[in-house]
């Protein structure tokens, strides 16, 4: 992985550094913990729980001063919001600036395992039956050394709905970050029963991936809702879910969003045009690759099913032959061994390749959503600018509004740019690994079959030599 672009990510990196420092003292911790991204403004980056700092929003003025001092050091720091109210969409997290020390250090984040301090597993699916419905919960175990967590180990049970809620909150808080995808709600084709074992297992793995990706994300990992998701008891989570922006405000947002998307994006910057083109093409290709990979699995499965019948016929045949008994039995056992090797290849494919490719199919949908949201934010700004130019109504208030929106747009754009680079890097690694594994599975499969048949040949040749030497007078 290359160095992370954007001060925000660097800040996030710094935050992790700082976090370890932060263990020593609360105050240091509060200073060190960063918003994670320069788009602290528009995104209102939620922070790792700062229970110790309930009144922190009150100190925003102080924070601002610190932030401004740093402006001259790093260009991208300009994007730090000047207005605390815009930054915080999540009522639970105050905005935290980065410390000067941490800003200077740009470190590779994901590659350093010793920095990972949040370990999550998803397992033990369990069926729950109520009078109204049947659903599955998954056990989530979190182990952490982070200070902001009350304990070092948590165990909770969550259902798919809860994951959906979490994803929604993350998207709300960070509209232009690339949130990891959730496995689909239902799989339409071929599904007879929602709760079939394979389906549950596939979903469990995907949910595990989902949470770990969030944990590995420099910004999202500090999201408050994420923390609550991982740690809260069932009733706590329910009551928490009920809070947050009300229905009306959400509806308002939706209306605005629809309106602005209908207007279309006139001024999408060049780099985002490129990004959009990439996303469209990528989406096409990854969908095709997903279909192809699923098809290969299906064909391999059918091949395996036929092969299972093939070996035993030779055994049947050997029953009526005298001279060929051994040869036929040996052929049968070779075929059976190759059959097992095929089975192994299939399972390798379904572990290494299929889930990865499918995740990126879902990612590509996510990306399109992110692009839309970015466009929306820009559209908001554009419409206000238009209003200013043409309508000249409330010209006193508009410039201020526009100023805020401009900040918002800039934060959104930078957040996306930074996350985009990170995402691309991850994608390349993941795809590379998945296909390399697939190739490896195939090589191993053929090597096994080769060994099987070669040893058969050897034994036949040896037999023949024995026979011919016996024949000699």
């Amino acid at each position: 992985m290359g160095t992370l672009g954007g001060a925000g990510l660097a800040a996030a990196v710094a935050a992790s550094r700082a976090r370890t420092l932060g263990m020593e003292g609360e105050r240091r911790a509060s200073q060190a913990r960063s918003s994670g991204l320069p788009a602290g403004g528009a995104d209102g980056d939620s922070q790792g729980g700062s229970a110790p700092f309930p009144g922190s929003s009150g100190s925003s003025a102080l924070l601002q001063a610190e932030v401004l001092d740093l402006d001259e050091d790093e260009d991208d720091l300009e994007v730090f919001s000047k207005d605390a109210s815009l930054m915080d969409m999540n009522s639970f997290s105050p905005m935290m600036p980065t410390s000067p020390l941490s800003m200077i250090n740009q470190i590779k984040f994901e590659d350093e395992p010793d920095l990972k301090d949040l370990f999550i597993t998803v397992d033990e699916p369990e069926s729950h039956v109520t009078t109204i419905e049947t659903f599955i919960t998954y056990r989530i175990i979190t182990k952490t050394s982070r200070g902001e967590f009350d304990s070092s180990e948590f165990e909770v049970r969550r259902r798919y709905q809860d994951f959906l809620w979490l994803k929604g909150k993350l998207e709300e808080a960070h509209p232009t970050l690339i949130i990891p995808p959730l496995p689909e709600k239902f799989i339409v084709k071929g599904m007879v029963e929602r709760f079939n074992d394979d389906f549950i297992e596939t979903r469990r793995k995907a949910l595990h991936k989902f949470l770990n990706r969030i944990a590995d994300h420099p910004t999202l990992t500090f999201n408050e809702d994420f923390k609550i998701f991982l740690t809260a008891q069932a009733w706590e989570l329910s009551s928490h879910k009920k809070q947050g922006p009300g229905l009306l405000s959400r509806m308002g947002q939706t209306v605005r969003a629809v309106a602005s998307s209908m207007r279309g994006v006139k001024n999408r910057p060049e780099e985002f045009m490129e990004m959009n083109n990439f996303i469209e093409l990528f989406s096409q290709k990854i969908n095709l690759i997903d279909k192809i990979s699923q098809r290969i699995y299906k064909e391999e499965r059918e091949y395996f099913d036929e092969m299972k019948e093939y070996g035993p016929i030779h055994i049947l045949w050997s029953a009526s032959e005298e001279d060929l008994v051994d040869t036929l039995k040996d052929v049968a056992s070779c075929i059976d061994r190759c059959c097992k090797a095929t089975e192994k290849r299939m399972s390798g494919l379904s572990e290494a390749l299929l889930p990865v490719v499918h995740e990126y199919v879902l990612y590509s949908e996510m990306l399109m959503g992110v692009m839309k949201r970015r466009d929306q934010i820009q559209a908001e700004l554009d419409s206000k600018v238009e209003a200013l130019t043409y309508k000249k109504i409330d010209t006193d208030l508009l410039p201020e509004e526009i100023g805020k929106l401009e900040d918002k747009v800039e934060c959104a754009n930078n957040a996306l740019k930074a996350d985009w680079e990170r995402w691309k890097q991850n994608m390349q690694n993941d795809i590379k690994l998945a296909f390399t594994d697939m190739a490896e599975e195939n090589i191993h499969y053929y090597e096994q079959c080769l060994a099987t048949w070669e040893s058969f040949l050897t034994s036949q040749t040896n037999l023949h030599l024995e026979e011919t030497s016996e024949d000699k007078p």
Partner: protein
Amino acid sequence: MEQAPPDPERQLQPAPLEPLGCPDAGLGAAVGKEAAGAGEEDSGVDTMTHNNFWLKKIEISVSEAEKRTGRNAMNMQETYTAYLIETRSVEHTDGQSVLTDSLWRRYSEFELLRNYLLVYYPHIVVPPLPEKRAEFVWHKLSADNMDPDFVERRRIGLENFLLRIASHPILCRDKIFYLFLTQEGNWKETVNETGFQLKADSRLKALNATFRVKNPDKRFTDLKHYSDELQSVISHLLRVRARVADRLYGVYKVHGNYGRVFSEWSAIEKEMGDGLQSAGHHMDVYASSIDDILEDEEHYADQLKEYLFYAEALTVRTFSLKGMTTKLFGQETPEQREARIKVLEEQINEGEQQLKSKNLEGREFVKNAWADIERFKEQKNRDLKEALISYAVMQISMCKKGIQVWTNAKECFSKM
């Protein structure tokens, strides 16, 4: 093994053992190509040389196939394939071969030859012909008789058929067989002049009478069981093999889609592009490799099919009246067959009475038949073992190709 068939058959004997107008007393045949069953001609040749002082050997090959159009018996235009049969004689001393005869024959003429041999040598296991129509076909393989691959496999099968006859100690001396190889025109008329179709009827009577005496030879009963089982198991094996081939084809070909998509994807990737593109190429190679692999397997299937047909012929020969009539006279309706069988059964009962007085000849016949069956069994064991080994060799080759392609692909992926 060399004995002429016993007396009751003498009137039906084939033309004199010495071929007409040919200075060499007998045709000992050597296998010209590596076609199946390379082992057994040695014993044939040895006994040949034992009895003949001319040591001429011949090589037979069906070297070409050609599409022809002509007019059939009903004066309608038809398309058929003609096969070029070349006969070479090999000088014993220097091993050089000289082309002595070359003519074109079509499948129906091969059938005629075989039917003739079936009638005149009831105690011999006559080699089968390659299939008339493609059977046990897996989906992508063409069932079309004009398909080049099918024609090619048939060419090989026909050559194999001739070589088997040529290497059979008794069949190789048959005049009609000799003429098949040497006399292009009028051959059909010559065969029909032997009147073998008519004789088939009384042959049947005599043949089945022999086997329906009060205490049938247990060996023949066992043989019938064996040939039934062999038929059944090989058919089953061929069916499953065809399905396996179909599936395998699917697995390989789908990978070809990766090639196309990787190539398109590589256009938008800066760092991954090259790796994707070259990996895609290897996926194409992988996908196209299956065609040759399965073509080779078809040859293996053909080897098994030969013994399927042998088994079918054995079953027919030993006991099946119905089968015999069908093979010689074409398809009949069940009612016709039933009627015919009733008639024949009556005739057989008469024949049984007659045969009681000819037990000695009967035993002689059985002895000769059994000798040929032993010869056939040994040939079968050799051939089938060889076929199974060649199957293993094919699998090994397929695995090696697979390892190579995927190793290359892996390298490309790891460079992405």
